[in-house]
């Protein structure tokens, strides 16, 4: 009996090790190349890629594409990192931001897409030569093919602005403060902007507050290039000054609030196109031109609003270095097939509401009727070339955390002057970039 249990334990050990050591199979005996595609962990995107993979496999022999949602434990980035560490990374995945791609490329975990044959042709076919320019990494390579690009905008409660005597949304910092002053005079309990994340150290929150205003002020300065902090001092201080004045005039509500913009508690909000399906369901009265207007972030006085840039909430596809050359090529061919037809981008747009990262989105006839039906998406389509993607540095997380802890949060809390905060932040970031 003892011997049997002993054998059982040994077998168990062998099985566990065998399972851990087995190499990933890249194809079957009949020459079929099998690739693993990780979609973003949300049903619309998973449905889109499942449908694309099915159609591609019907048209193409010798390829099998398994589409599965990427694990979120507790974030999709952590899920990918764990998979790479465990040797179970997919062949290709979407949902890759530029900052995360910088971390991955820094460790050679993803491959440069520009080295695949047909890359230039893909850019041409999808009309994305301009959009992808800002995605070039410091080493000159393209590690991510952007799928969508949300030029983050501000929504303004135009009905309340009209009540306050304004016909248009404010375009400059002083116009914003003027609106704020009128708002407090008429509605002391309302706020200009309600955003709890403004005082949270969460690194990615800076994309939707600091970088929106900073990109507008700096006309799209890259902030960091390679290992150099090239932030625009004048634009940075002007950005912090705006937050400082908004805070001192009690125009910011930095507490958790449920639907503040929709209920009129605040009159401005950072907004991406994902909000519209929520409004359709819960706030059908939110109509463009009646209740709200969309606008690019305000610029400092002296900067033309026409030059305003904004933050691009944008993600794309990357191919993993751990896959075989055969799998990598098969994955690239699939991507090329998907983006060779604008109808696929239209299907994506309809399914996800996320604007495809194309230069011709607002002009291409394929998308005209959909944009006419959904006028709220027009402003996003128009501003794709004006949107700046996240920093491409492996220390993006640390840098954006320092923007929050050393500059934005203390300024909003009145603990530092904008100049002092900017100086402290730059010193801290330079320490990280060394």
């Amino acid at each position, binding site marked *: 009996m*003892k011997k049997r*249990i*002993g054998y059982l*334990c040994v077998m*168990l*050990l062998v099985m*566990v090790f065998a399972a851990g050591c087995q190499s990933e199979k890249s194809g079957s005996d009949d020459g079929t190349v099998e690739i693993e595609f990780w979609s973003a962990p949300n049903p619309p995107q998973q449905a889109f890629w499942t449908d694309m993979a099915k159609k591609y496999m019907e048209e193409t022999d010798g390829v099998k594409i398994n589409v599965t949602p990427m694990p979120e434990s*507790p*974030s999709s*980035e*952590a899920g990918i*990192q764990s998979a*790479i*560490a465990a040797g179970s990374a997919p062949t290709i995945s979407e949902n890759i931001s530029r900052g995360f791609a910088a*971390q*991955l490329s*820094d*460790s*050679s*975990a993803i491959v440069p897409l520009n080295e695949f044959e047909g890359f230039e042709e893909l850019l041409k076919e999808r009309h994305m030569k301009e959009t992808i320019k800002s995605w070039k990494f410091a080493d000159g390579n393209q590690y991510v093919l952007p799928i969508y690009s949300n030029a983050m905008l501000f929504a303004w409660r135009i009905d309340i602005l009209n009540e306050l005597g304004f016909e248009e949304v404010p375009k400059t910092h002083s116009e914003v403060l003027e609106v704020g002053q009128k708002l407090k005079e008429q509605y002391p309990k309302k706020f200009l902007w*309600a955003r*709890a994340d403004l*005082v*949270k*150290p*969460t*690194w990615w929150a800076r994309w939707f507050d600091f970088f929106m205003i900073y990109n507008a002020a700096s006309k799209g300065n890259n902030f960091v290039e390679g290992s150099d902090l090239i932030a625009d001092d004048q634009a940075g201080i002007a950005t912090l000054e705006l937050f400082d004045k908004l805070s001192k005039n009690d125009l910011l*509500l*930095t*507490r*958790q*609030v*449920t639907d*503040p913009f929709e*209920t009129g*508690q605040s009159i401005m909000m950072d907004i991406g196109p994902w909000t519209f399906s929520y409004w359709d369901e819960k706030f059908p009265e939110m109509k463009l031109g009646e209740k709200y207007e969309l606008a690019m972030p305000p610029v400092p006085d002296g900067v033309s609003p026409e030059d305003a840039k904004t933050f691009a909430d944008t993600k794309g596809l990357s191919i993993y270095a751990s896959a075989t050359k055969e799998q990598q090529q098969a994955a690239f061919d699939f991507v090329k097939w998907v983006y060779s037809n604008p109808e696929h981008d239209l299907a994506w747009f309809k399914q996800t509401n996320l604007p495809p990262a194309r230069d011709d989105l607002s002009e291409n006839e394929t998308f005209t009727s959909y944009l006419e039906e959904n006028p709220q998406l027009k402003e996003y389509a128009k501003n794709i070339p004006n949107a700046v993607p996240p920093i491409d540095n*492996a*220390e993006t*997380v*640390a840098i954006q955390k320092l923007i929050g802890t050393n500059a934005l*949060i203390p300024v909003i809390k009145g603990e530092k002057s904008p100049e002092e905060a900017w100086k402290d932040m730059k010193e801290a970031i330079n320490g990280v970039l060394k």
Partner: protein
Amino acid sequence: MFASPYLVYSLIFFLFPLLWATYLAFTNWNLISPDYEFVGVQNFVQAFFSESVRAAFFVTYKFLAMFVPIAVIGALCLALIISALPRFKGLFSVAFFLPYLASGVASAIVVNGILSYNSPFNIWLRSTFGLDINWLGSPVLAALIIALMMAWKFMGYYALLFVAGLESIPKDVYEAARMDGAVGWKKFWYVTIPMLYPSFYTVTILAVGLMFGIFTEPYVLTGGGPDLATHTWQLEIYQQAFERLHAGYGTSIAVINSIVTFASILVFRKILEVWGAKHGWE
């Protein structure tokens, strides 16, 4: 021999990872690169001088000071109420145990909703008392709210352990105490509490250990703020290893966390044993 499956399991899932983690703590591995170097004690030195690691150390003891008394006393009260019930003890025990099964993320989102600026609760506080409280914006209140959430979640579970302890106290001990004149409060203080020593021991050690592993609640509610007031060991490890990809450094913090946890549990164990010995528990 019968213990060998468990030993094999422990070997694979505990001992090997522990040894591997200890080794990684001395490297600069970034989690995804196949190349890394041995950096000696550099990670530990960096952790020693890190403001966020220091914050995690003190924040844990702050949570401990708030959570352990609330959870232990609350669980004991619940257990006393459940044991005194004439009927449906099982039903009530299960009902109080249910929060333990609730997802930390879901309960954090609910709490976020309750404490939001325009929640009915806050609107009522403002309109009735003129009180405008920034619940998660105040360092003390944010920590207290997280401690209370944890207590709500675990109190029912700990109460079950106390109920089992109460049920196991022999009736003749109470009878002997009654004959010696111990009734009411005296009976509770001099008989029930000392006789519950094994339950107190288990519950306190579990509660202390739990405080070194808090992650979900501060991750969802506060992100570790305000001013690192709710920044825990697990948040720091997650941020370093998975957000900044400093896995070697993150692992060194995890090793320090394990040592601090072990030492703290030993201290609490000793205190409990001294208290138990006073009442004849060896």
